């Protein structure tokens, strides 16, 4: 017979411990770095008592609740630095960010990017009581990156847009609307909430309208896709002006010849920042484009290989590793010559 000491104590006397443990698991799961062994431990913990399960689901619902993010938006801050980053801090910040993501050869580029951000940051310093924002932003401001670069733009309304490589965009703010045109490439948006001033994005194949949310737009040759990480995003495909899609957290829409809606795992938003993409049935040609944009490397593919379809999680900021592994799996050869990767049929 097994005597469980814990079972003698009332549930009410253990509630603090259980809530702390439940909060620990929820934070762990949402940190995106929970290990497999910990998952097993979590499952065992949940099975041990109905009290564990109850507190875990309550903590999980609370953490995922959009009411919580809404409440946090009005919370007093320790140091108000979100809107007006001092130039020096901005410089350090972007350098640290780049140090974490960049390859050694990007270090030179990182300084140039840092300067871009610095000027953008100065430019967008909000003045306390002037509703008129920077005139350059009112006229339309062009933002561009070359392959392999990244650019983080802090807009005066508090929104943050992170441009991927080989991307071209234009921001234009009016008193009633925030316009953003994504002409080429991909960008991650963290849009500051403002119901009176919707954020409108024009892409190649669809218009996107939000009031405050986080999502990623990627444009490929064959389609434009939107991954929603938080809030609600409204999308109107150009091909069908009358229809409107409302997407919530975890939804992915792909607008190409058809409009397809699927789901993806929205728990790890840093996936894209860290160079990961999750693709089903992407052509080798399109995947190579993503790699080129992110890494700045040139890739030339044999004609009969471009339409090869691949599925899985790919790390596009490490072209050498990725192409090597794919070559083994799909039977093509990778040759690196004159700063270019050539992919040729293995037979």
């Amino acid at each position: 017979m097994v005597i469980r000491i814990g079972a003698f104590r009332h549930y009410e006397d253990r509630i603090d411990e259980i809530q702390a443990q439940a909060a620990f698991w929820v934070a762990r799961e949402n940190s995106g770095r929970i290990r497999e062994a910990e998952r097993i431990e979590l499952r065992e913990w949940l099975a041990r008592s109905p009290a564990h399960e109850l507190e875990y689901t309550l903590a999980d619902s609370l953490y995922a609740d959009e009411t919580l993010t809404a409440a946090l938006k009005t919370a007093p801050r320790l140091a108000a630095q979100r809107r007006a980053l001092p130039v020096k801090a901005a410089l350090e910040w972007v350098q640290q960010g780049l140090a974490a993501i960049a390859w050694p050869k990007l270090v030179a580029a990182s300084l140039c990017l840092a300067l871009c951000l610095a000027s953008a940051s100065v430019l967008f310093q909000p003045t306390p009581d002037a509703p008129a924002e920077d005139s350059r932003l009112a006229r339309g401001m062009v933002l561009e990156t070359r392959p392999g670069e990244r650019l983080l733009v802090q807009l005066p309304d508090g929104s943050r847009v992170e441009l991927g490589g080989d991307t071209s965009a234009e921001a234009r703010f009016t008193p009633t609307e925030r316009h953003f045109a994504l002409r080429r490439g991909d960008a991650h948006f963290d849009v500051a909430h403002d119901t009176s001033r919707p954020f409108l994005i024009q892409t190649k194949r669809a218009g996107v309208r939000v009031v405050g949310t986080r999502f990623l737009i990627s444009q490929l040759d064959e389609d434009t896709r939107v991954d929603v990480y938080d809030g609600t995003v409204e999308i109107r495909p150009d091909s069908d002006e009358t229809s409107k899609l409302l997407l919530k957290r975890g939804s992915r829409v792909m607008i190409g010849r058809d409009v397809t809606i699927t789901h993806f795992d929205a728990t790890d938003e840093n996936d894209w920042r860290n160079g990961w993409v999750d693709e089903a049935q992407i052509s080798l040609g399109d995947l190579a484009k993503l790699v080129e944009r992110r890494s700045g490397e040139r890739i030339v593919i044999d004609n009969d290989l471009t339409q090869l379809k691949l599925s899985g999680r790919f790390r596009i900021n490490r072209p050498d590793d990725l192409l090597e592994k794919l070559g083994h799996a799909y039977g093509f050869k990778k040759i690196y010559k004159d700063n270019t990767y050539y992919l040729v049929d293995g037979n």
Partner: protein
Amino acid sequence: MTANTLPFGIGVGERRALVAFLVRKSGSEMLAEDIAHDAIIRLVEFQSREKVRNSKALLFKIAVNLLINHQRRENRTVEGVTDEFVDERPTQDRAALDSDRLAQLQRAIDALPPLRREVLVRRRLENQSYEEIGRALNLSSAAVEKHVVRALASLRAYQDKHVFEGVSPW
């Protein structure tokens, strides 16, 4: 359901109070009855494995959890796509409940120590990594995680404490 099939500590009066509470929260009598029924069954299971002092409070908590899960499931069915005929705006009752929850969470957040609150804002609202937060606030990643955990646990404790106070805590 007769009184003698109800779990220990729960009488007809408690059951009626629970249904009334759930009708207020959900606006649907049928849903309230379903959830109350389900919650009572779960309470019986719960009590077979744990010693419970206040079964009434636990019953309400289990019911609230079931209601949240139900609403989340319902949201998920329209999550993928809704067409233009579906109005996303909440009904007036829902909006009132949501604003109550918002106000409650705001109070709970205000009650957190400033540093812990800052960590939570950066983590949950701004989606910064533990490393980023640690760098900005001069904390180790482990300390950042502890702040997130404690903040979340405090908010949960606050919710529990205020479930029965006021008109509509949830």
